[in-house]
């Protein structure tokens, strides 16, 4: 990819009232070579069609009133984005609150596009009895789907295990339609699963922090151009963001960077999501 081509890739990072991750997400996207504009929700939606793809970042749109993300889905800007995705296959990355918006908008899982087929329900309560269902910590993800199945994870090999932070109170992927889960498995739409540092996927509170069905942390639509994920890859896009106490390669790398600013700016594991988005944008505009 030429630098010129990369510089021409433009995504709109949609900012709702209550979004709070737009600037760090913009920085992560720009580090991957994507031009990223913060696009306020109350601008003319027609301006959205000029962009090659979209990001909906984390936060608490509309203060999470009623349910996380649901008020935002009713905005005309989401209808326009839906049209652009459906008609032109533009890529969309929804992170945390963005994932909640995509699910409530019927873009994810998208088995019947436009229908709400899942929920991001409140996390299961901590079984140790602590009050408080908002979970904010580092977890590990396994890239589950086949190479290239999801355009937004195309730069990761299947089985790739990476650390990433979560911060949500309503992040439990669930559905009352068991057939939908079977279909997601059959379609290879489950992109990320919560796992331990060795890649073991188990439904325990330590590994599956919110009690999600099938340990699901991220799902793509059947076409693979829309990804909804609860963890925050933008907060793991630079080595400096990683906690030194991480075990394995990334913890070792972080510890080795002490005092070295250039090394701190090296890509973290989450950068691959934005690298994948860049490649998806290139495909989309070609």
């Amino acid at each position, binding site marked *: 990819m030429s630098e010129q081509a990369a510089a021409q890739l433009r995504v709109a990072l949609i900012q709702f009232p209550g979004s709070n991750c737009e600037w760090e997400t913009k920085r992560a996207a720009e580090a991957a070579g994507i031009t990223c504009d913060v696009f306020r929700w109350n601008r003319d939606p027609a301006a959205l069609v000029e962009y090659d793809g979209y990001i909906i970042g984390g936060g608490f749109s509309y203060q999470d009133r009623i349910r996380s993300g*649901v008020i935002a889905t009713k905005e005309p800007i989401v209808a326009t984005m839906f049209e652009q995705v459906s008609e032109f296959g533009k890529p969309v990355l929804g992170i945390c609150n963005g994932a909640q918006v995509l699910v409530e*908008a019927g873009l994810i899982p998208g088995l019947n596009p436009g229908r709400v087929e899942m929920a991001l329900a409140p996390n299961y309560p901590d079984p140790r009895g602590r009050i408080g269902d908002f979970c904010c910590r580092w977890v590990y993800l396994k890239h589950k789907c086949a190479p290239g199945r999801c355009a937004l994870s195309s730069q990761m090999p299947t089985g790739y295990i990476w650390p990433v932070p979560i911060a949500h109170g309503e992040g439990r992927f669930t559905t*009352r339609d068991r057939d939908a889960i079977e279909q997601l498995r059959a379609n290879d739409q489950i992109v990320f699963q919560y796992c331990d540092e060795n890649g073991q996927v188990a439904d325990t509170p330590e590994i599956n922090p919110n009690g999600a069905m099938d340990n699901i942390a991220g799902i793509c639509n059947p076409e693979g151009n829309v990804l909804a994920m609860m963890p925050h890859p933008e907060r793991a896009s630079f080595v400096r963001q990683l906690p030194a106490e991480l075990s394995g390669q990334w913890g070792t790398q972080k510890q080795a960077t002490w005092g070295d600013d250039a090394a701190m700016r090296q890509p973290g594991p989450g950068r691959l999501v934005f690298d994948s988005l860049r490649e998806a944008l290139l495909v989309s505009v070609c």
Partner: protein
Amino acid sequence: MQTIELLVNLKIPDVTALTAASAIRRRLGYEEALKELRRSDYYSLDLNVGKLDAARTLAQELAEKTNLFVNPNKHSYAICSPEEHNGGPASVDGLWRVEVLVTDAEGAQAPEIEQALTERLGYADQVAAVRQGILWTMLLAADSADEARSIAESITVTTARDEGLLVNPHFQAWEII
């Protein structure tokens, strides 16, 4: 055993209800139909008392003394019995009042509150069970009770981006009470 209900409301304007009403009117097309929308925290208490009056007295004590249900600085509350609901749309001044109770689909039990009441606050003999949810009260313009019920259902159940708002049926349950 008596079952009694505690409805807790904000004294200040409820921005969640206002936002919901705005979205329902402006985005879902119920500008004319939805006249008012109110939201209450709903608690249903199974109390080990013989008579309804005793249940009301105990519920009042729980509301005012435990600090679990009501913060008097910001909340008001009302006590009622399940029989006081209409089970469907009720005609009020030419409009229809519909009450929609939303609970978690996996159960409305409130174990933390039950535990606090029975294990820490000394109500083990008096409180048998606590359930919780959100009660939405709608005032609707409609030609009939059936139409009002239909509108309430459409407003409530989210089936698509532009259909429904108050409930995601994949993890929530609802009923008109």
